[in-house]
């Protein structure tokens, strides 16, 4: 059973976006989700070992471009798709790494995978969402989840 509470995932995300991007995450409606028409970018890292599951970070493609521009010292219009994927992947990497540091036992962190598109869900076979945290970043939604493999 995991030991990370919703508050931890919120705080982890808040600290990362503030320290790395200088962007503030405020708690948002727990049930908020991106509309089907919104193009979103999702970064995912898997954790294996004494605890098995995954951590995802999702935001709109627009917010991802803003964050990428900050990362690269560029502008949202000038960043490339590769740079956007790199940025969101790294946000997932940092979030997952900080979650992993709170888990008992010995665990390993995968390299990040990034998905972009509209109206999709990320499934990890055999895993279910055990924590879902939403945040508002300058009016845009950020969703962080923790999935745990059962059995």
């Amino acid at each position, binding site marked *: 059973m995991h030991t990370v509470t919703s508050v931890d995932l919120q705080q982890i995300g808040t600290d*990362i976006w503030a320290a*790395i991007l200088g962007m503030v995450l405020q708690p948002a409606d727990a049930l908020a989700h991106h509309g089907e028409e919104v193009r979103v970018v999702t970064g995912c890292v898997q954790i294996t070992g004494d605890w098995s599951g995954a951590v995802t970070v999702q935001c709109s493609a627009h917010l991802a471009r803003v964050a990428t521009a900050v*990362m*690269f*010292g560029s502008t949202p219009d000038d960043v490339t798709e590769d740079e956007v994927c790199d940025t969101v992947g790294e946000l997932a990497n*940092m979030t997952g*790494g900080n979650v*992993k540091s709170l888990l008992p036992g010995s665990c390993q962190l995968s390299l990040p995978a990034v998905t972009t598109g509209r109206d999709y869900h990320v499934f990890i076979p055999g895993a279910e969402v055990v924590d879902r945290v939403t945040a508002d970043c300058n009016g845009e939604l950020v969703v962080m989840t923790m999935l745990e493999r059962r059995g």
Partner: protein
Amino acid sequence: MKILVVDDSKAMRAIVKRALSTLDRVAGAQILEAADGREAFGTVQSERPDLILSDWNMPEMNGIELLQALNDAGTSVTFGFVTSESTPEMHELARAHGAKFLVSKPFTPESIDQALAKAI
């Protein structure tokens, strides 16, 4: 001074470089980059950096494998980790292999400066 920044994320390399550029301690340093441990090992042989800041989890050759390879090659260089993975076990493993510091992501320029103050 030459500093080698090793991370498979180009975005993170940019962030680390930007943080280093704000530090008086390494003012004027030439900052090199490598995208994984294997590339970094080659760069160390050709460029002889004074300091390496390396991520841990990377494809091809991860950070601890890079440090071990440098040790095996008899290469003496100040080495530290900048990584999102920061368990006590990893701190100990890094220390056992000769790393001078491990800075956790997310970091601030100040946290990197504090680590460098003890290492260089």
